[in-house]
């Protein structure tokens, strides 16, 4: 074979390989995250030990976790009280167990925020001055007997961010929504649609759990997944406390015993266990650099904030150390980074109020604030 035909043969082979590479990547993407695929859920329902009668004797939106899994096609579901006793159904699962690697900047124990604050007052009896007897709505506030939200837009230098300061009298007002109301990968909805379908007052994107099989997914009291993860895990409990812990510290037993209401896997933690600013993060340089962000902050049981930072446009985004400082400045005692980039979207009063990068994108889940009682 002479040099010319050898060269032609090489280019022909390379062209074939590039074609096959493109085909392979498309097929991989289809099966990895594009094609909707319902996943097997652990289906463990954790019941609310603080459940109270609704104040409104008429129709209500009182949330029952045991009904939340019906749409996910889960049957014969074990339910647990927050005291950890199984009430009925099959035996539970330990979710495959967690590893002990933990790429977290946190210490290996969860933040026991309630013990730190020493406050054991139920959230239903706190912040009375934040609520109103009737629903009062302005452009930037919403107050009712159960919820108080104040949304502000802030600009610091070249960073624009939105802070939703939230008080809830009933933790079930702090809800999650799954795209297409189905647990699985490849299911996506816009945050606006999820907010509208769930009558949410406020909504932000969640942790995009559908992109991976790792980590912990607890939504509205249902444990869908509790797999090994090196990421930090954020857990919101029925008593209103929120803990951010290394993935290695999470166990299904603890979640059941402590009454977990929501849990997200993305991270990292943005504040140290004592609420101080973190300067190092177990993440790649590209992730730490300035990006659009969505994050949740925790002050004390019943008082939270959701922050969305715009980026890749007029607002240049925020680095993780800057975001950590922002939550410390807000006075939070714990904070957790959720999915960001094009996903970062805040919906307030049925409208997207930030400027999502690239026009935003659909997500597999959302965090919502919604009334569980009907008020006129």
């Amino acid at each position, binding site marked *: 074979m002479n040099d010319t035909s050898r060269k032609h043969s090489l280019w022909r082979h390379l062209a*074939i390989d590039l074609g096959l590479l493109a085909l*392979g990547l498309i097929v991989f993407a289809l099966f*990895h995250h594009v094609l909707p695929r319902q996943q097997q859920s652990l289906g463990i329902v954790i019941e609310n030990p603080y459940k109270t009668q609704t104040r409104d004797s008429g129709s209500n939106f009182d949330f029952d976790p045991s009904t939340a899994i019906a749409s996910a096609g889960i049957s014969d579901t074990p339910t647990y009280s927050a005291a950890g006793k199984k009430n009925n159904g099959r035996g539970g699962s330990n979710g495959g167990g967690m590893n002990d690697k933990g790429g977290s900047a946190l210490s290996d124990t969860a933040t026991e925020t309630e013990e730190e604050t020493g406050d054991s007052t139920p959230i239903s009896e706190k912040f009375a001055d934040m609520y109103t007897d009737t629903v009062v709505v302005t452009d930037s506030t919403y107050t009712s007997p159960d919820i108080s939200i104040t949304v502000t837009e802030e600009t610091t230098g070249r960073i624009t961010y939105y802070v939703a300061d939230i008080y809830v009298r009933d933790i079930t007002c702090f809800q999650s929504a799954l795209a297409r109301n189905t647990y699985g990968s490849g299911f996506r909805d816009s945050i606006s649609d999820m907010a509208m379908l769930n009558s949410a007052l406020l909504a932000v994107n969640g942790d995009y759990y559908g992109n*991976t*099989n*790792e980590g912990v997914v607890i939504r509205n009291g249902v444990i869908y997944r509790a797999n090994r993860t090196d990421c930090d895990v954020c857990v919101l409990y029925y008593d209103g406390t929120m803990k951010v812990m290394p993935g290695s510290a999470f166990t299904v037993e603890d979640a059941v015993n402590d009454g977990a209401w929501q849990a997200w896997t993305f991270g990292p933690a943005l504040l140290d266990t004592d609420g101080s600013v973190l300067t190092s993060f177990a993440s790649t340089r*590209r992730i730490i650099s300035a990006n659009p962000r969505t994050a949740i902050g925790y002050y004390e049981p019943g008082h939270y904030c959701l922050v969305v930072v715009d980026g890749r446009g007029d607002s240049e985004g925020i680095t993780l150390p800057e975001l950590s400082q922002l939550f410390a400045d807000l006075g939070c005692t714990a904070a957790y980074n959720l999915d960001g980039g094009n996903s970062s979207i805040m919906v307030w009063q049925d409208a997207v109020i930030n400027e999502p990068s690239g026009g935003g994108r659909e997500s597999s889940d959302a965090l919502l604030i919604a009334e569980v009682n009907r008020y006129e």
Partner: protein
Amino acid sequence: MNKLRTVTAHLTVVLSLMFLIFLVLDQFNPMMNFVDNSISHWLLALLCVSGAVHGILYYRKG
């Protein structure tokens, strides 16, 4: 045997490039878990087999 060698050569090149792309994507978005998922595990096994078979066939040809 020549055909098998051609196939394994293509497989090795294509799968190697796929994993290089996964590694780059993993730097940008580790939460997507491009490298450490069940599909990638199968592709990695296939890459190992095709690489080994291709190497053996190369030795055989001498």
